[in-house]
């Protein structure tokens, strides 16, 4: 009997700024995702992707990032909210692929230093996700006042986030399995 391939769901950290608190959130979500049986994950830090800035789109595709997204069944995007929007580097990285995203699931984690948990950046990311071919889920995770959520050593100070992340990931995994079946078995023709 053929063994079922594990799902691969990488987490993209969507900021390259120094001192970014979103790193703590991304590490937490990656750790929780890794606890799910049949799921493999890794943290993709956009600060470590050497993309040129004098061109854009698939012209600057980076082989390792492309390979990771190609292998992925779903993505988690962890995005801080900067002036109600996402970071320029995140958009630059997302735009470097297309084929790799089609009919794959995505869940968005918003991070803000204020009280709204990145809700506005999530709303701004939805049309981008749709256009690049990803399928968004209806669960988000919102880290509000992120400076109070994590200690300096990255440890979580508010355990209520674990339950929220669990609900978010269960929905994402369901969607990832469903879309894998669709990509591989259900013909458009």
């Amino acid at each position, binding site marked *: 009997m053929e063994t079922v391939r594990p799902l691969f769901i990488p987490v993209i950290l969507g900021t390259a700024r120094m001192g970014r608190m979103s790193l703590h959130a991304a590490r937490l979500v990656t750790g929780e995702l890794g606890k799910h049986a049949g799921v493999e994950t890794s943290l993709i830090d956009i600060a470590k992707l050497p993309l040129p800035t004098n061109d854009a789109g698939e012209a600057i595709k980076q082989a390792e990032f492309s390979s990771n997204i190609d292998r992925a*069944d779903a993505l988690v995007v962890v995005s801080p909210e900067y002036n109600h929007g996402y970071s320029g580097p995140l958009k630059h990285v997302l735009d470097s692929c297309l*084929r790799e995203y*089609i009919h794959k699931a995505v869940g968005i984690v918003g991070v803000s230093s204020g009280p709204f948990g990145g809700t506005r950046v999530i709303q701004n990311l939805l049309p981008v996700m749709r256009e690049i071919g990803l399928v968004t889920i209806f669960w988000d995770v919102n880290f509000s006042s992120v400076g109070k959520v994590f200690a300096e050593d990255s440890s979580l100070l508010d355990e209520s986030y674990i339950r929220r992340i669990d609900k978010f990931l269960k929905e994402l995994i369901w969607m990832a399995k469903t879309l*894998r079946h669709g*990509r*591989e078995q259900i013909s458009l023709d």
Partner: protein
Amino acid sequence: MVAVANTDKMICSKCQVEMNHHSDKIVYKAGADDAGTDMALGGIIEEFHACPKCGGGASRPEVRVHC
């Protein structure tokens, strides 16, 4: 009249099995010549395929023949 000519199944380069055609998408490319452009839709239609065995993906432009 425009006819879609590219009906050949894609084969996974790794597994050598027939891939599943699961999506078409319009791709807009600045500076692209008119070859392959669907004038009614305003862009190039890209086909997306997945391997039922390894899950690998592949794409190709839909080939259109004006006749």
